[in-house]
């Protein structure tokens, strides 16, 4: 069984990091995993997107036309990618920055005001952690307890950021549970 998720937003939102955390968690739980960034002549504020593939067997193509799920952190990302998500996928919408929806009835929308939650916790920078935790809980793509440990180890060298990110993580789980 192979599942793919595309993380998309603008440069600086921590898109690549949240995708990497998900990939880490998948690796720790023993899955095959691939993290494929879009790399292009882009800069801060430009578009950033990244695909994570998780599978129980060797992964073939790194080119994914139709991912199973989408985490959209800004409006252009949702508009660009909402239509390519496979039916029954989870589409996480960062409602703080995205006033529109997918206009699809065959996907599960997960509405997360990630920026507002992050600001209320103390820093907008942890919006990506809110998003990845809400997405992981809703989609079941990785074990959320393993993901939590991966976030802690990612921030091990900046330990003072761990409590903030753990709060962000818990808020993401709550949103997913309530959806």
């Amino acid at each position: 069984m192979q599942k793919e998720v595309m993380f998309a937003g603008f440069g600086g939102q921590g898109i690549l990091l949240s995708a990497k955390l998900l990939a880490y968690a998948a690796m720790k739980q023993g899955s095959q995993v691939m993290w494929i960034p879009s790399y292009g002549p882009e800069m801060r504020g430009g578009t950033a997107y990244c695909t994570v593939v998780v599978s129980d067997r060797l992964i073939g193509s790194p080119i994914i036309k139709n991912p199973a799920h989408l985490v959209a952190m800004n409006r252009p990302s949702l508009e660009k990618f909402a239509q390519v998500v496979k039916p029954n996928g989870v589409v996480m919408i960062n409602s703080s920055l995205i006033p529109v929806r997918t206009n699809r009835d065959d996907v599960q929308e997960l509405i997360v005001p990630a920026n507002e939650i992050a600001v209320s916790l103390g820093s907008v920078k942890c919006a990506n952690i809110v998003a990845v935790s809400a997405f992981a809980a809703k989609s079941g793509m990785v074990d959320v307890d393993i993901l939590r440990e991966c976030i802690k180890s990612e921030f091990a060298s900046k330990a003072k950021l761990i409590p903030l990110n753990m709060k962000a993580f818990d808020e993401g789980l709550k949103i997913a549970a309530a959806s």
Partner: protein
Amino acid sequence: MAKVLMKGNEAIGEAAIRAGCLNYFAYPITPQSEVAEYLSKRLPEVNGVFVQGESEVAVGYMIFGAAACGERVMTTSSSPGVSLMSEAISYIAGARCPAVFVNIVRGGPGLGGILPSQGDYFQATKGGGHGDYHMLVMAPDGVQEAVEMTMKAFPLAEKYRGPVMILGDGLIGQMMEPVEFPDDLYVEPTNKDDWATNGMERRGSSTKNIVKSLYLDPATLNNHNLLLKSQYEQMKREEVRFESYNTDTDYELLIVSYGTMSRVCKTAIDNLKAEGLEIGMVRPQTLFPFPEKAIHDAAAKESCKHVVSIEMSMGQMVEDVERSVKGKKEVTWFGQCGGEVPTPEAVMEHIQTLLNQNQ
């Protein structure tokens, strides 16, 4: 050791250190700059040498210098940078010095683009620089294989006393996959005292070692060329590596594909198999020496109607595939350039078209 999640570029850098390479010279270029970034941090930790050259031309000769001294040495670059180094690569081949070159290929010609490509197949396998030489060229299909090939490249360069190239592409450099660094791939460096310019007192010999590629006497140069040729023939006997995929079936069509492109093809083959269609693939892991016999034999299978070389280039490897198949089956090319990697869906559609034509 446990698996770690690493970018291809970083993993290649770490693999070089694990292979005992403590000399790395490079000039930054997308999409391989992370190798230099990684090694600029890591090499000082292991008492290695990192130098950012003023250009790829200079880097090529830094590699030549270190290799001539008998040191394990590597550089990494991407297509335009490798063109600039090609003069030095020819000199290194002519002077018979072991060195490892990594090309994380981007689109061309000229500055081209920065996205993945396989457009440097000709440059890597047929020369690039001038004169009668070859590099041993290995093409990984992912991060783990990039690690293993990088570690194997150093002993192979020493075995043949010549340049070895790892031919990746932008995706292999940029993507992350779990990797392990197998300790058993480390091979002690060969004794280079009989040829390297490693200093009188270390040599303990009264004869002077000279590293050069200039042979003005025609008979001497001819003999030198014959020696190089005999080494390339030995590579063809001993170093051919390939992977066969789904070839134990009665496949109707044979794909030849390498690197990132071969992984796309594997997905296409799996999807078609689920639809009841059998497609085989030979994936060259060495591009020079080329797995001629494996491709010839796979194409000769009765059930196989057609051979297609699928590449992220406008048709380069297809010439070697044609040469291998020797006219036994029709050979065609399929591919895409500019950084647009063909999707599994595009490959499947093309295969269906080919099979419909062959009905």
